[in-house]
């Protein structure tokens, strides 16, 4: 089965190509079904590859499938090759699995959109690029996917490009990601110039054996982290992700919550031996940036009123958690949280999409309330997602968050405290959201006039094709924690499965105080989550305490405005300076050369008088001069 792994990216690519050719003719819902079937087929192949890999002994779970020699130039040989190992298959499983569910959901959500078939071209193209990213055997193939998902993300954020805010948000995402891509490219160049290869196996082997200097591995790790900051929305480059919510909700769920934004975490895990070989402060930097992002985004989410913005900041915060884990050497926990987060955050986004759909494209939570009676399935599944992200046992989010906190405690207690505060805020703002949307008083009647065409406005439950993915994801969010239960070593399924990839760099904490008292830490986490939920109920449901939603938090600490001011003011001036230098210095040099040639040629061409005998005379005189030189040189010499 493993030999057929090339089918994995091939299915969605073929789907996209067919849709480009005949998508319009297939129309609705044919185009959506085709795209969904391609993703489901890809998922089926992934499951086959997974079981094939599982049937092998642990040390043989590593297979490189070379498709063709891509760039053979001198000492640089880059193959278009796929790397099949536990990490890439784990990623591929949830990309294609959740991707297929979201494709199905989108058939319902995009109903009636004039660009229905084009939406699915982008979606299939995205799945293809994402699979290339995680399956790539070397940095360049990954980079191909990395740019591919970036482009698809841009297309899909600006999908409703007639809306100015959507067009601007797409541009913002693209430009911000460019800064990160610069880091990835530089890391790639550095790897090639120092060890002469961009293949993961070669780089990791060089880091492992020590042939790569420590300063080089530090530089590569940090440059890749710059790329991860862009793609995975970490401080200071997270700016684009909240704006990316301008895209259709299935896109927010698939790209900006479950898959693409986790590719930074994936890349750091893939290169974990390099991070392990790097200077100690490199992982520490990553942990600090992760913790800062987690706390920063969580505080902002507390004061947002747009149903999707809350989830967007929550995603940024949870990604910060994953980087906190990566920086603490908890790679398994990072991947664990990535997978459970993909389950419950996709569920929450799709749930919010269902609410938006039922509310006729209303996203302001202040205009919702008491929707649980009208949308029972959406409400029930959303509540499961809420319990999972808030860290309530036994839902999936609790186990993965607990695992991360355990490792962070063993690494650094200050970061652990930040993690706990973030967990408290997460429980608080998610409870706030659930209360504002599904409980309390119904406020949507007051705004029914805004939805004029519908006359007697009443929110409605979504169609079955949108509810089915919600139910599946709700089940996964409930039982997903079973991948890695902390009670016994035998229940660490994910850890054993990922061991061949990460065991070298994984932190060993079994002798620490934290590990011996893990049930105590677990209790603390449960108390913190309960406190957050209780606080939110007191504030928003019982109304015993006033809501604290200062403008500074609603405006994201004015970070966005400050960045806009800096880039728009001094930044704009600086770029104008660069443009001036380009027009005058660079172009000046080029134009100057041309002018010089033209002037001297004009002077020289006077000598071409068209008087043939004058030419002959000059030739004769010249010959005499040359002869004379020979003769007299002989005499003088």
């Amino acid at each position, binding site marked *: 089965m493993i030999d057929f792994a090339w089918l994995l990216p091939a299915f969605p690519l073929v789907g996209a190509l067919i849709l480009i050719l005949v998508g319009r003719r297939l129309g609705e819902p044919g185009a959506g079904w085709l795209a969904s079937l391609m993703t489901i087929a890809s998922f089926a192949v992934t499951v086959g590859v997974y079981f094939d890999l599982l049937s092998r002994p642990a040390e043989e779970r590593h297979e490189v499938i070379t498709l063709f020699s891509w760039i053979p130039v001198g000492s640089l040989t880059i193959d278009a090759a796929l790397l099949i190992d536990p990490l890439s298959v784990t990623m591929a499983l949830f990309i294609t699995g959740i991707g297929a569910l979201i494709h199905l959901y989108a058939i319902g959500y995009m109903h009636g959109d004039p660009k229905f078939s084009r939406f699915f071209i982008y979606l299939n193209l995205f799945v293809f690029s994402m699979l290339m990213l995680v399956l790539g055997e070397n940095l360049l193939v990954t980079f191909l996917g990395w740019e591919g998902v970036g482009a698809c993300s841009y297309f899909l954020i600006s999908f409703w490009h007639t809306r100015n805010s959507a067009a601007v948000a797409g541009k913002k995402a693209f430009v911000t990601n460019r800064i990160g891509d610069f880091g990835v490219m530089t890391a790639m160049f550095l790897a090639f110039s120092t060890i002469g290869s961009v293949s993961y196996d070669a780089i990791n082997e060089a880091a492992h054996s020590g042939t790569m200097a420590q300063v080089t591995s530090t530089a590569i790790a940090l440059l890749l982290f710059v790329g991860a900051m862009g793609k995975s929305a970490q401080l200071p480059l997270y700016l684009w992700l909240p704006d990316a919510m301008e895209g259709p909700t299935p896109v927010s769920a698939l790209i900006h919550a479950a898959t693409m934004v986790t590719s930074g975490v994936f890349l750091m895990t893939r290169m974990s031996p390099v991070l392990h070989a790097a200077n100690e402060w490199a992982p520490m930097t990553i942990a600090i940036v992760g913790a800062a992002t987690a706390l920063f985004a969580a505080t902002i989410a507390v004061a947002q009123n747009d149903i999707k913005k809350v989830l967007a900041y929550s995603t940024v915060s949870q990604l910060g958690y994953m980087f906190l884990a990566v920086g603490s050497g908890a790679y398994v926990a990072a991947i664990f949280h990535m997978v459970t987060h993909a389950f419950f955050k996709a569920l929450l986004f799709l749930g919010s999409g269902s609410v938006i759909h039922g509310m006729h494209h209303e996203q302001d939570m202040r205009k919702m309330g008491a929707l649980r009676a009208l949308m029972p399935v959406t409400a029930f599944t959303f509540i499961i997602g809420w319990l999972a992200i808030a860290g309530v046992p036994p839902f999936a989010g609790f186990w993965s968050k607990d695992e991360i906190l355990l490792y962070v405690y063993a690494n650094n207690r200050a970061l652990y405290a930040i993690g706990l505060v973030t967990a408290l805020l997460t429980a608080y703002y998610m409870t706030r959201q659930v209360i504002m949307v599904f409980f309390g008083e119904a406020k949507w009647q007051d705004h029914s006039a805004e939805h004029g065409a519908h006359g007697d406005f009443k929110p409605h439950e979504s169609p079955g094709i949108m509810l089915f993915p919600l139910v599946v994801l709700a089940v996964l969010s409930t039982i997903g924690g079973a991948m890695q239960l902390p009670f016994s070593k035998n229940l660490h399924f994910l850890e054993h499965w990922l061991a061949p990839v990460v065991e070298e760099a994984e932190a060993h904490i079994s002798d620490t105080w934290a590990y011996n008292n893990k049930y105590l830490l677990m209790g603390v986490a449960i108390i913190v989550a309960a406190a957050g939920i209780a606080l939110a109920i007191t504030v928003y449901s019982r109304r015993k305490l006033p809501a604290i939603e200062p403008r500074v938090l609603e405006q994201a600490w004015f970070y966005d405005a400050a960045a806009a001011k800096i880039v728009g003011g001094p930044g704009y001036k600086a770029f104008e300076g660069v443009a001036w230098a380009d027009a005058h210095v660079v172009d000046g040099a080029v134009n100057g050369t041309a002018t010089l040639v033209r002037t001297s040629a004009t002077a020289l*061409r*006077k*000598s*071409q008088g068209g*008087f*043939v*005998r004058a030419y*002959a*005379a000059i030739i*004769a005189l010249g010959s005499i001069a040359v002869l004379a030189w020979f003769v007299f040189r002989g005499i003088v010499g």
Partner: protein
Amino acid sequence: MNALVVVPTTTWYLMLSAVLFVLGTVGVLVRRNPLIMFMCIELMLNAVNLSFVALGRQIDSIDGQAIVFFVLVVAAAEVVVGLGIIVSIMRRRNEVTVDDLAELKG
């Protein structure tokens, strides 16, 4: 009687060659008819040929004569091209001097 027998030495041939060469050069410089100029160039070429043969004989080497054959072949080729051009120019214009052929001047 013996005194009257003049044996031409290499110097004589070289002097003749020089005279022919200068004649040819002056002809090219002063004449305006392209055909005449062309013949003057031939004269210069053959002046050089003469010096080749003379010097070749003096140092007792066949190389001088061999080179002359090359020169003759090249000169023949040159005549074909040059005369072709001159004849086609002559056909288009009634009276031609090289001074009038200055369309390509700078």
